């Protein structure tokens, strides 16, 4: 059986692909509509239907073509864009501006995002409190829900969260796909350890100052979500840092290198997620007996997670986000999704089917709300 699996690839027949899509179809239908689709408002109905179809068509093509990353990336990028749209739209509706004021901080009205989580840990342990001016429960983007979503996702997907759940990752993923070939071909790979340095730095500085220092001073995604009102030299400096990091690490370098440079070289949450890769059930495996060492996978990996040495040793590094790009590129079907404990080269289809169902379900349901909201906004704008 193993030999058959090694040579057939991951493509499925039309009938089988439809069959594999059916559970996703039913579950996303239930989650998106609550079992009772509401078409009373035409724009909302069209937005809901479009997103529902988009989500399921992409999943169908993952099975039908055997390609993962190609279709994952579509939803992932749309998610990033629509989440930014939703956040900005919410800011504009509530505050008539993309910045938050001192009053918003004093009244703890700042939307929470998962990048704050590493900085919360020590203060939560030592001061028994959360160092973020947001809402613990209720309201838009509250702390408890984001913590639950991230915790479960990172325990089950590990760094897979960075390619299937993070609503920021789609930005540099998108920009890394713009050029056909990279302009900058080599970057010292030692930089991939940088997120750990950033992680330690922000954990310690946040504990000492009781401030989410990464959000206050570094986060590039402030440029596309919300930031502090520029009223002083300090807030102007912060805005300058946010914009430069967004321009450099999320736009320019991904375009030039075809890599997700923000996620590879900066994000402290990505560093924690990669540590949780150690305990998740799903992994990426290399079937050494099928690999002919063409190293196509090494070239395409957007997160510097694969080196020639990794391929030779048959082990993918902890930086892997399970995006599937290497698998789409592998002509031998040698690199594949796997399950911990199951030897590489075996149960390839089973492992892929299970992983895709779990990870895609998370992304589809997590992203649906903001994508529907964005489609709805676009429809209202056009008509």
């Amino acid at each position, binding site marked *: 059986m193993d030999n058959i699996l090694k040579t057939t690839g991951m493509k499925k027949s039309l009938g089988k692909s439809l069959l594999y899509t059916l559970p996703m179809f039913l*579950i996303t239908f239930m*989650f998106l509509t609550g079992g009772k689709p509401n078409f009373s408002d035409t724009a909302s109905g069209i937005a809901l239907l479009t997103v529902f179809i988009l989500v399921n068509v992409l999943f169908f093509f993952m099975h039908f073509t055997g390609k993962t990353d190609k279709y994952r990336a579509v939803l992932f990028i749309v998610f990033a864009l629509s989440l930014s749209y939703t956040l900005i739209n919410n800011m504009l509706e509530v505050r008539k501006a993309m910045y938050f*004021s*001192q*009053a918003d*901080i*004093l*009244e*703890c009205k700042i939307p929470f995002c998962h990048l704050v989580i590493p900085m919360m840990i*020590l*203060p*939560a*342990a*030592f*001061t*028994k*409190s*959360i*160092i*973020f*001016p*947001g809402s*613990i*429960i209720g309201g838009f983007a*509250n*702390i*408890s*829900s984001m*913590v*639950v*979503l991230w915790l*479960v996702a990172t*325990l*089950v*997907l590990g760094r897979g969260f960075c390619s299937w759940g993070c609503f920021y990752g789609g930005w540099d993923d998108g920009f890394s796909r713009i050029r056909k070939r990279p302009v900058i071909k080599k970057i010292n790979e030692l930089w991939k350890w940088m997120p750990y340095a950033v992680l330690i730095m922000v954990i310690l500085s946040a*504990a*000492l100052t*009781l*401030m989410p220092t990464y959000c206050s001073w570094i986060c590039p995604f402030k440029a596309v979500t919300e930031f502090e009102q520029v009223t002083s030299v300090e807030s102007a400096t912060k805005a300058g840092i946010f914009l430069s990091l967004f321009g450099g690490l999320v736009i320019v370098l991904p375009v030039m290198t075809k890599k997700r440079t923000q996620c590879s070289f900066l994000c402290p949450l990505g560093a924690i997620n990669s540590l949780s890769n150690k305990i*998740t*059930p*799903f992994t990426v495996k290399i079937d050494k007996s099928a690999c002919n060492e063409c190293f196509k996978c090494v070239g395409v990996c957007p997160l510097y997670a694969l080196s020639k040495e990794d391929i030779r040793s048959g082990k993918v590094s902890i930086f892997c986000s399970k995006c599937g790009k290497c698998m789409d590129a592998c002509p031998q079907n040698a690199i594949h999704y796997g*399950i*911990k*404990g*199951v*030897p590489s080269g075996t149960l390839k289809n089973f*492992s892929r089917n*299970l*992983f895709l*169902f*779990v990870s895609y*379900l*998370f992304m589809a*349901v*997590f992203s649906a709300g903001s994508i529907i909201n964005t489609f709805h906004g676009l429809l209202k704008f056009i008509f």
Partner: protein
Amino acid sequence: MKKTKIIAGIFWAFLGLIVFIILFPGLNNFSVSVSKLPFMKINPRYTGGEKAYHLVAEKCTLDIRRPVFNGFLKESNSGFVQIDWRGDLPALINDSIDYNGDGEKDFFIQINRKNLKTDLKSFNPKVKDVVISTPTSYGWAVRVGLLKE
């Protein structure tokens, strides 16, 4: 051993699947449970601290909060006290504040809501300066910097 590992791996993977299927329908309940954990409350540096005194004037109220000095491992030497004005506020707010309840006024504060100017006169060496003075959805809030010792 190899078989046990395979079965354990597949079991763990299916458990992940089940958890994900119940995650979204159960998100509200899970979040409420998480919100009840002892550390799930916003640090007083952000909330402004608990209310210590509540004063009622003709058309508005004044809340003086407990001074906040909290630090990571031990209390910090500098902190602040937050004052909130609520209700129908006059254009010019003038108030003398006794923040520690010792019967002595610690500072006098004047807020001009039109030009957003805030002046502080300190009668207590522990009272430093105005850290924040801002209109809020409920009225006005001021944070006055304090020294502990």
